[in-house]
């Protein structure tokens, strides 16, 4: 007779030996190894709150009249989708809490992924044999951005509509296939019935399923390859030293999961985010001002704002380079370089070395310099995404702010990279005496 349910299961699947070994898995106890976990926890909050929202959201462009608890919109004509989001915010108990927590969790999800990516990049954790997991991680980031955009579009408010029109404009700028692709992906933007149901399926099923699958792959590869570790006494190329999975790491990790949830719910309850009811329902002839996407998409908007209005004629064909280069080529280059990075760096190594101990940023001045270049450019483009806000704050014309930012984009990233390189080399030399 089995004493506990756990023993009952164990007697049928024989898990004792595996479990005992698994519970002793070593987790490096440096704080930076928790960034990826924070992203995973934000994902858990996204799934939980998202499930709640899914039960109330209506993916339909059918015109209805709002008759809920929010007085300013009483009697306003709007799509069923927008009405369901306004109702979620004012008429469903705890609906606004779930909506806002979901939105905050999306921001934290992307930012934690980027922070985790920076940790892995600047310490060289992506090197052989872990290139594959780097690729999976970059795909996770791309999917997170895609789903962020799809989610941003679902409330069918003025901003969502503007975002979709800009996306259509960007797709139209693709040579030859632009028009066909825009129609295939977005359909006729004026017929939003189809578009909303497609975005809904993309946002709640396709991309989340892909994210969950890739997160599982990310974890499976990590378990197989084990964690990297910083150079410390007792840590070699042939061991992993750290906290045991159980109880120390499980408790710490569970505690942080709950604390991430606490922060997100506090933000969701106290700090307003995406108040769709204030801008009103989508209307193709009205555009709100200012128009800003979510924080993690600002670099895209910034690139579109900063790029000069080049629309030259090439062999009698008008080429909208002003949209194609910043809107299509730049993101492709960014993600292309990210995907290729471990292989670019690996090709410069004479032998097939397996890296297990991590670099400090100063140990690889070249890599650090490239990383600083990319982050500086990203920061400037993000600032450019709010060039109207900057201009208003400085009481300067937008053209002037744009001009300054254009120059900075050309000058500052190489300068920052050079400084980073020099600092790394200097500090390394100082260490060697």
């Amino acid at each position: 007779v089995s004493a506990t349910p756990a023993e009952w299961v164990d007697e049928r699947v024989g898990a004792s030996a595996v479990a005992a070994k698994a519970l002793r898995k070593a987790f490096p106890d440096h704080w930076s190894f928790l960034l990826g976990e924070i992203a995973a926890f934000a994902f858990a909050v996204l799934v939980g709150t998202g499930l709640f929202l899914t039960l109330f959201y209506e993916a339909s462009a059918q015109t209805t009249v709002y008759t809920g608890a929010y007085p300013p919109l009483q009697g306003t004509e709007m799509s069923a989708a927008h009405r369901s989001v306004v109702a979620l915010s004012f008429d469903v108990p705890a609906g606004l809490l779930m909506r806002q927590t979901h939105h905050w969790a999306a921001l934290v999800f992307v930012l934690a992924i980027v922070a985790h990516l920076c940790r892995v990049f600047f310490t060289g954790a992506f090197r052989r044999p872990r290139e594959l997991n780097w690729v999976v991680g970059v795909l996770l980031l791309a999917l997170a951005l895609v789903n962020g955009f799809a989610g941003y579009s679902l409330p069918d408010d003025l901003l969502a509509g503007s975002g979709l029109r800009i996306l259509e404009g960007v797709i139209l700028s693709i040579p030859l296939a632009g028009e066909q692709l825009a129609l295939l992906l977005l359909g006729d933007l004026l017929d939003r019935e189809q578009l909303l149901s497609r975005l809904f399926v993309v946002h709640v099923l396709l991309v989340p399923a892909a994210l969950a699958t890739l997160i599982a792959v990310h974890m499976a590869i990590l378990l197989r390859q084990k964690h990297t570790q910083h150079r410390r006494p007792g840590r070699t190329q042939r061991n992993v030293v750290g906290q045991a999975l159980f109880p120390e790491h499980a408790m710490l990790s569970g505690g942080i999961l709950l604390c991430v949830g606490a922060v997100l719910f506090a933000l969701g309850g106290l700090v307003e985010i995406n108040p769709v009811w204030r801008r009103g329902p989508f209307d193709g002839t009205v555009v709100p001002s200012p128009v800003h996407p979510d924080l993690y998409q600002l670099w895209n908007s910034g690139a579109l704002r900063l790029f000069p209005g080049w629309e030259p004629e090439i062999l009698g064909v008008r080429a909208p380079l002003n949209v194609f280069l910043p809107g299509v080529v730049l993101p492709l280059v960014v993600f292309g370089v990210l995907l290729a990075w471990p292989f670019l760096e690996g090709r410069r190594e004479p032998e097939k070395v397996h890296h297990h101990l991590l670099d400090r940023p100063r140990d690889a001045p070249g890599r650090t310099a490239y990383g600083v270049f990319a982050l500086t450019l990203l920061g400037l483009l993000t600032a450019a995404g709010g060039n109207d806000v900057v201009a208003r704050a400085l009481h300067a014309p937008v053209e002037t702010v744009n001009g300054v930012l254009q120059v900075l984009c050309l000058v500052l990233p190489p300068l920052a990279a050079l400084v980073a390189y020099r600092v790394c080399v200097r500090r390394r030399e100082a260490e060697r005496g």
Partner: protein
Amino acid sequence: VRGLLVALLGLLSGLLWRRVRPLPDPLVVAALGLSALGSLGFVVVYVLGADTRLLGVTMATALGGLGSALVLWVRRDMPRHLVEEPWEPPVPSTEEREALRRELARMPRRRFVERLLLMAGGALGLALAVPAASLGPRPGGRRRRTAWEAGVRLTTDGTEPVRPGDLGVGEILTAFPEGHPADARAQVNLIRLAEGDDGLVAYSRVCTHAGCAVGLYQPESQRLFCPCHQSQFDVLDGARPIAGPAGRALPRLPIESGPDGVLRATGDFPDPVGPSTWERA
């Protein structure tokens, strides 16, 4: 009643406390108590009208209390203990690789059949991909035409006609083709630059950069602004882009004053409206 409740609670906690040895970390106990209070508070707030702020605070207390209790427990009550695992690069040995190769080699080589298999598989893949075409209608010059044509009257909402006298100098209104209210592709900014019939211009209200509505007008500088990416167009110079990322002028709708005194189009826009595609200039 309240005194009785306090006494009962005191007795209960006293009884519990005596049985707990060694005494637990008071911070952990406090965090767990706070968490339970938060959960209880969440339910109470939900029942009493579900105020968003209080819901957020109570849920954060419930989660944060539990989370910090776990972290505090690890940090304060467990000795720092490191484990060591061996690490080998995940490279298979020659024998392992050979064993896998032997298993794979049990498949007989039939080059011709393999090639046919690839071809048939590829054809199947293509066939399965074709229904994706159902996603969109076929493009067919749809983007090049709008609802405007010669004789179509300008209206403010699809029915209310616009007359030249409706606008003073420096004034602007959004106009739509008659019978097409809120047509996002055909919308125009109608602006009076000067007195007389020649003083009126109508420019497409769809940005040639990324397709937003060019919804802002500054009469002092005679500029139209797009709020999405801050493109600016000079109304006095054929709505040419003068700042920002737009690269093409807003198409101008040819208009005239009709015999009934109502403004009407004399044709469609001469250029495509909205974002540019790669096409013959």
